[in-house]
C-alpha cells in the first residue's frame, strides 16, 4: 500500500528538486501526447528545449528573444511572489500590466511630438503609477471592506481590457492610421522608444529592470524587516500580529509593489517589443507570471530561472508548431502540463511517500 506521511518540516531537497522533476514529467507526458498526434516525440521535445538555444539556424536569434519574452514574466512574477508569500493573492497582474501600458503610453502620446530625453523616464513613472493605482482598488477594498482580493483583482482584468479597447479605438488612436484601431508606434518615436540597448542581445530597459528587481527582492527577503514580515505573515499570521506586523499595511504594500511592477512591465513592453497600444495588446503575461512565480518557488532567483524556462517553452513551442506542424493547442496543453505536474509533485515537499500499511511503519 502506498500512503503519505506528513513531514515535520518541508523538505529542503524536494523544494528544489520538484521543479526539475515536474519538467521531466512534462517532457514524458508531453512526448506521449506528441506521439499520439503522430509526431516524433524526441524531435518535438528537442525542438522545444534544444533548438532555440543551440540550433545554428535559429539560436543566434532565439537566444536573445528568450530575454525579451522572459523579462516581463520575471518582472511581474517577482512582484506577485512577495504577496503570495504573505498570503495576499493578486491574480489581476494582467489588468495592472494593461493599465501601466495605457498610463505610460498616454503620458508619452500627450506630449507628442516633444523630443526630449526625459519623456521616456516620465512614461516609466506613469506606467508604474498606472499599475499601482489599478492594484490599489482591490487592496483598499480589502482593507476597508474586507472584500476578497482574488476576485476583485481578477475581475478588474476584464475592466482593464475594455478600457484598452476603448483607448485603442478612441483617445489613443493614431490620427494618421487611416481610422484603424491602435496607437502610434511608440517604438518608432525616439523619445519614447525602449530599444534593444546592445544589438543582438535582446536587452532592453525592461530586461534590465527585471534583473534589478530580482536582486532587490532577494535582498528584501533576506535582509530587510519587510521581507521578514512578509515571510512571517505567510507562515504564521497570528505570530506575525504579535510581532507587530500590521496586516493592512502589508496588503497595501504587497498589492502596491506587485501592481507597480506589472505596470512597469506593461510600459516597457508597449514602448519596446510590442510598440503600440492595440486592442489585443495584452497576451497573457500577467497570468503566465503566476505560473512562473510558483515554478520559481516564490524565490527571486528561482523566478529568474523559471521565467527563462517558460520563455523557452514559448519560443520552442512556436518553432515546433511550424517546423513539425504541431497544432497550437498541443503547445498550450504542453505548457499546462508543466503547471499541473508542478502542483502535483509539490506534494513531495510536505509529505513522504511510504510503502506498506501504517502498522508496519509504526
Amino acid at each position, binding site marked *: 500500500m502506498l500512503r503519505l506521511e506528513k513531514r515535520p518540516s518541508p523538505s529542503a531537497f524536494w523544494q528544489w528538486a520538484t521543479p526539475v522533476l515536474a519538467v521531466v514529467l512534462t517532457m514524458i507526458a508531453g512526448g506521449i501526447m506528441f506521439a499520439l498526434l503522430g509526431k516524433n516525440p524526441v524531435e518535438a521535445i528537442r525542438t522545444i528545449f534544444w533548438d532555440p538555444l543551440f540550433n*545554428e*539556424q*535559429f539560436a*543566434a*536569434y*532565439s537566444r536573445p*528573444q528568450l530575454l*525579451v*519574452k522572459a523579462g516581463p514574466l520575471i518582472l511581474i512574477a517577482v512582484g506577485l511572489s512577495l504577496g503570495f508569500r504573505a498570503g495576499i493573492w493578486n491574480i489581476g497582474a494582467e489588468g495592472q500590466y494593461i493599465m501601466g501600458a495605457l498610463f505610460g503610453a498616454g503620458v508619452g502620446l500627450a506630449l507628442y511630438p516633444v523630443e526630449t530625453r526625459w519623456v521616456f523616464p516620465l512614461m516609466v513613472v506613469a506606467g508604474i503609477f498606472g499599475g499601482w493605482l489599478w492594484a490599489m482598488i482591490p487592496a483598499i477594498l480589502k482593507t476597508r471592506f474586507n472584500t476578497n482580493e482574488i476576485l476583485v483583482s481578477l475581475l478588474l482584468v476584464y475592466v482593464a481590457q475594455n478600457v484598452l*479597447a476603448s483607448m485603442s*479605438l*478612441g483617445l489613443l*488612436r493614431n490620427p494618421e492610421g*487611416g*481610422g*484603424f*484601431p*491602435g496607437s502610434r*508606434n511608440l517604438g518608432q518615436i525616439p523619445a519614447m522608444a525602449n530599444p534593444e540597448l546592445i544589438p*543582438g542581445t535582446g536587452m532592453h530597459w525592461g530586461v534590465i529592470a527585471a534583473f534589478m528587481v530580482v536582486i532587490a527582492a532577494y535582498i528584501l527577503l533576506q535582509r530587510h524587516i519587510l521581507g521578514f514580515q512578509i515571510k512571517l505573515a505567510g507562515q504564521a499570521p497570528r505570530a506575525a500580529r504579535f510581532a507587530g506586523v500590521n496586516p493592512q499595511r502589508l496588503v497595501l504594500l504587497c498589492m502596491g509593489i506587485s501592481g507597480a511592477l506589472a505596470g512597469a512591465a506593461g510600459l516597457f*513592453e508597449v514602448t*519596446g*517589443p*510590442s*510598440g*503600440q497600444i*492595440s*486592442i*489585443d*495588446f495584452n*497576451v497573457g503575461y500577467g497570468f503566465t507570471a503566476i505560473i512562473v512565480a510558483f515554478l520559481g518557488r516564490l524565490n527571486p532567483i528561482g523566478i529568474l530561472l523559471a521565467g527563462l524556462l517558460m520563455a523557452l517553452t514559448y*519560443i520552442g513551442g*512556436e*518553432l515546433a*508548431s*511550424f*517546423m513539425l*506542424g504541431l*497544432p*497550437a*493547442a498541443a503547445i498550450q496543453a504542453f505548457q499546462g502540463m508543466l503547471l499541473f505536474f508542478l502542483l502535483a509533485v509539490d506534494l513531495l515537499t510536505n509529505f513522504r511517500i511510504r510503502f506498506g500499511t501504517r502498522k508496519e511503519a509504526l
Partner: protein
Amino acid sequence: MKRRTILKGGAALGFASMLGGKMSLAQGLEKVKAGFVYVGPIGDGGWTYQHHQGALAVQEAYGDKVEIVWQENVPEGADAERVLTQMALSGCNIIFTTSFGYMDPTNAVAAKFPDVKFEHATGFKREHPNVSTYNARFYEGRAVQGHIAGKMTKTNKIGYIGSFPIPEVIMGINSYYLHAKKVNPNVELSIVWAFTWFDPAKEADAAKALIDQGVDVIASHTDSTAPLAEAAKTNGAVIGFGQASDMADYKPSPRVSSIIDNWAPYYVKRVGALLDGSYAQADAWEGIAGGEVEIGEITDAVPADVKAEAEALRDSIAAGTYHPFTGPINKQDGSAWLAEGATAPDGDLLGMMFYVEGITGEIPS
C-alpha cells in the same frame, strides 16, 4: 541562413533596396517554401479556416515543388515579429501574414530579410520592395446581401454586426445599406459593434440585441456562426448570411446566402509566380471577378425572382458593368460624395470613415 547573414542584415538591406526596385526574379525557384501566419485556429470555421484552405490549395497545385508551413493563434504584436523572423530563418521564400495587425511586424521583418517575399493581407503599408499587400473587395458581396435583405425584410428593419469601426467594415455597412435602400426605401439599418473578429458569446449577444429591436435580416462582419445560431432560434422569422466561409450547416434558413473568402486563386498565383520567375511586388484588391469573393448559394428560402435579381447583380459586378458605389451618393451629413454616375475611387473606399446618407447613429471613436 547563418548567423553571419543576419548580422550583415543592416548592410545588406541598403544594397538590396538599391537593387530591389529593378531586380525582378529573372529566374524562378526550383522549390518554394511558403509560410502562413494565422491569427486564429485553423478550425475557426471562418477567416483563418479560409486562409488555410488557400494554403492547402497551393500544396495541391504544385505538389512536390512547394512545402507549406503554418502557425496558428499568433498574437498581433511582438510575438508576430518573432514568429515571422523564425519562419524566415527556417528558409521560407514567401510568407503570408493573414491579419491586419501583422502590418508593422511584417514590414519590420521584411527589412531584415530582403530575399524573402512578404505578403500582408488587408494592410496598406509596403515599406520595402519585398512587401506586397492583398485584400478582397468584400463590399461587392455586401451589395448582393443588401439587395436580398431589402427584399426579404418584413419589419423593414435590417441589422449589421460590426467588428471594428475601420474602413474595411464601414464600406461593407454602406454597401449593404445602399443596396437594401435601393429596393426598399423604407428600410432602416441598426448597427451593433462587437469589437471583436471572433467571439461567439459576444456575437450572439449582438444578434440578440438586434432581434429584440425587431430586426429580421442580420448580416455580420464577425467570423463565427453564433449570429446564425441565434437567428435559427426564431423559427424562420429572422434570416442571415454566412460570413468568411459558407456556413452551410445553417442552410436553407436562416443562412440564405453567404460571402466566401476564397484566397486560393491569389495564393496559387503568387507562389506560381515565384516558381516561374515572374514575381513582382503587388497591391492586389480583387473581388467577385477575380474569384476572391464568392457568393454562396442563395437558398430556396429566398423567392425565385429575388434570387434571380441578386444573381444578376452579382454577375454585373463581376462583369465590371456595375460598381456598388455609383453616384449620386451623399454622406450621412447630407454633403455630396459621389456625383450622378461617378464611381468611388479606391482611395476613398480604403479611407472610408463616414456613413452614407440615411444611416442613423455615429461611428464609434
